């Protein structure tokens, strides 16, 4: 069971309080009507599924109920950092090469 730092509760909490919500920074078009089938496929179905650093969404559903983002290594399952929903994708990651 993972230990996840909720950026709103400002502390680590057991995974049982959280629900993973899939890849982060997948942008929903402001103009859905004009989106092409290809772009809709990219938006709704295509996923990076990386072996290594992933940017993902979690919801502290049984805690503060907020959605937030996390950076995690999918090989070690170690969290690099978490940050609030809406905040930009971090440029530099603490303690991660390249």
């Amino acid at each position, binding site marked *: 069971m993972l230990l996840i730092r909720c950026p709103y509760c400002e*502390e680590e*909490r057991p995974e049982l*309080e959280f629900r993973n919500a899939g890849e982060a920074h997948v942008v929903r078009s402001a103009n859905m009507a004009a989106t092409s089938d290809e772009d809709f496929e990219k938006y709704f179905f295509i996923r990076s599924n990386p072996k290594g650093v992933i940017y993902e969404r979690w919801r502290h559903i049984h*805690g*503060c*109920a907020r959605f937030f983002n996390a950076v995690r290594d999918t090989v070690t399952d170690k969290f690099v950092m978490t940050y609030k929903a809406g905040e930009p994708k971090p440029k530099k990651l603490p303690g991660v090469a390249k």
Partner: protein
Amino acid sequence: MAKGAVKSAPAGVERRPALAGREATGKSVKVEPLGPAERVSLRASAESVASLSRALGLTLPQKPKTSAAKGSRIALWLGPDEWLVFDEEGKDLLGDCAKAKQLHSAVGISHRNVAISVSGPAAEACVNAGCPQDLSLAAFPVGACSRTVLGKAEIILYRPAEDAFRVECWRSFSDYVFTFLSEAARDAAA
């Protein structure tokens, strides 16, 4: 909106609480239902907190996992824009919230939640039978509160005293939560 739900209505039908008559005691922990209370789920952004605090007569806590109490009235921080406010004397919380002019959402949930008291030297062990949080006084001091889980149910946990917890859950989960705590009390006491 559900107002004055606690006061039994004139010529009205009687109120039938979910856990009426249940009780469980272990050697060093007691699990018992708490009486009805007036409850409001309060939602508001930071700029409205001041006026809501004035309207409610207590300062809404803004630090995670903290609470504020004034008389019979207690406000629990549940999220950055969410509080559970309850009043065990049934004073009209929705009415008070309405006095705040700043933008907010106040929804009556007096009947949605059921409260259970877990008290005694083994209270912490009892709750930890199903709650994965660190409940030591260092990590979860008196006055601390949090939404979390107990076994397969979601609960709101509040610590009014060193050896006591208030466990709130949705009405239809109260049978499960009470039964779970009763069985846990048996072990925590053993």
